[in-house]
């Protein structure tokens, strides 16, 4: 498939935003059950500004997605087919998540945090905890919808796997936690070890999951062959003409058109940039802590994710390509 930068930026930016929110809420849940100390800094800054940064990233992703459309002014129509289309579901889930995240951040920032129920001995469930739980549910719904857009197309065998969903969740989560590590350095330094530790754990998990999908895709055998495509039983079938001299939509949309060497180079770049380098920078950064190393970890991982998403598209081999081998 041809990697479209609008979609690359959409999926990586919203993944980063979702991951950042999940990191912040994880810190809140841990501090509520007193596994980690309450933040000593200003809660309004940590939760409020943290949510705002996530919202900005999601908004940037939303804007990037509009560049993918031929008629962005009709985009509102895409909420109608949620019964059948994962794309439609994503279009609904994204603003719902953003709205919920906005309320979560707002309640924290304004300090509107009445205790709703007290469970057991003084374990209070307050408004922001509930709001965060709803937002978390929506964050995972959005991850599922985004990934299922790709995983639900059965012809694209490289994508049609539960690993695609797992990869989107773990890669988004890992990059979000890395961003959160940098953010906590400024907003709640006592949490740097906790968030940074989780960022490393998630990056390792993402490596396992993405590695598994790389191996799976390597072993794939295409279901469609020139024989099934034109229905002729002969081992030697060679295309002589595809019905277009200067290419067509079919040659532009489904082929990356880059040399195989570059694709291979992009693959090893992302494997290096998304996984080992950020882990190294995070580990060294936590030992300080040094904010420049957290910045480096985030920059390297996000650049790596752009390469990862580019490769995700380039790697997918659409069966229609069989019909478009020779001009």
């Amino acid at each position, binding site marked *: *498939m041809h990697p479209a930068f609008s979609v690359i930026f959409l999926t990586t930016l919203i993944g980063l935003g979702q991951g950042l929110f999940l990191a912040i809420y994880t810190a809140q849940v841990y501090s509520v059950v007193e596994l980690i100390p309450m933040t000593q800094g200003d809660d309004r800054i940590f939760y409020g500004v943290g949510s705002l940064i996530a919202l900005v990233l999601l908004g940037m992703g939303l804007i990037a997605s509009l560049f*993918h*459309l*031929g*008629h*962005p002014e*009709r*985009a509102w*129509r*895409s*909420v*109608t*087919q949620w019964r*059948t*289309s*994962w*794309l*439609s579901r994503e*279009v609904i889930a994204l603003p719902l998540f953003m709205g919920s995240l906005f309320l979560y951040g707002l309640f924290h920032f304004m300090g509107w945090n009445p205790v709703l129920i007290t469970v057991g001995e003084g374990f209070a469930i307050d408004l922001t905890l509930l709001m965060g739980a709803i937002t978390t549910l929506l964050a995972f719904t959005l991850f599922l919808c985004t990934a299922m*857009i790709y995983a*639900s*197309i*059965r*012809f*694209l065998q490289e994508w049609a796997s539960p690993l695609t969903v797992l990869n989107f969740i773990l890669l988004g989560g890992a990059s979000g936690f890395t961003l959160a590590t940098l953010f906590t350095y400024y907003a709640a330094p006592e949490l740097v070890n906790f968030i940074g530790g989780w960022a490393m754990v998630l990056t390792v998990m993402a490596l396992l999951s993405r590695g598994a999908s790389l191996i799976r895709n390597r072993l794939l055998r295409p*279901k*469609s062959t*020139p024989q*099934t*495509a*034109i*229905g*002729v039983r*002969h081992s*030697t*079938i*060679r*295309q*002589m*003409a*595809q*019905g*277009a*001299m*200067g*290419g*067509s*939509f*079919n040659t532009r*949309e*489904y082929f990356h058109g880059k040399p195989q060497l570059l694709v291979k180079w992009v693959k090893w770049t992302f494997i290096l940039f998304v996984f080992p380098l950020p882990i190294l920078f995070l580990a060294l950064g936590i030992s300080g802590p040094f904010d420049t190393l957290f910045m480096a970890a985030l920059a390297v991982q996000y650049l790596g994710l752009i390469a990862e998403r580019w490769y995700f598209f380039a790697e997918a081999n*659409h*069966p*229609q*390509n069989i*019909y*478009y081998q020779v001009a």
Partner: protein
Amino acid sequence: MTQLALVIDLNVCVGCSGCVTSCKEWNSSGEAGPMPDQNPYRAEPTGTFFNRMQTYEIGTFPNTDTLHFPKSCMHCAEPPCVPVCPTGASYKREEDGIVLVDYDKCIGCKYCSWACPYGAREFDEQSKVMKKCTLCVDRIYDLSLPEAERQPACVISCPTSARLFGDVEDPDSEVSVKIREEGGYPLMAEWGAQPSNHYLPRRKTHIRVREEELVRADNPLKRENFTKPSKDDQSLDDIMSW
């Protein structure tokens, strides 16, 4: 249930691309138009087509066979491109099974084209919407046309009658009989889209004559060696008369 579709006889198709040009002509001036081109008269010409003529070489020289292969939308019974559309612009008509795009609802996200294993949908770079074969829906029901012309443009124009149009759900229709009796097959059946368009395979006629049929005693060909007996030879009467 009615499912209109095309049956393409690969044994008859000569690859003249008449169907491609007549499709473009009709649909450029019909309801589905325009079908714009980019750089039509310069290097790298490209544009929107609903139907394309492809050519394949089967086998290795000198034992090769050339196959001309027109490809358009299959109007699948289970079209995978329809449920993925986020706006409902892509739809399958209940009454005749034609898969269409509502160009006023299409947002041009191209997701439907990803979900078509045949590459039958083509994005119109000028109108910024997805376009595809309409099976000349604006033609086949046009009562102002003579009945014989109420067929897709590609079918009418085919000089060798390699293209047939009809209801593949009706077992007695011309297309169903052809599919049944002449080995009609769908493309890429492995994806379960149940394409409605069918292709009739290349068929070669062989005369089966065995060696012994050529040399057997009563073969009339032997009469070629028949020589007239001379008057001195014994005749049947000479033997029988004593």
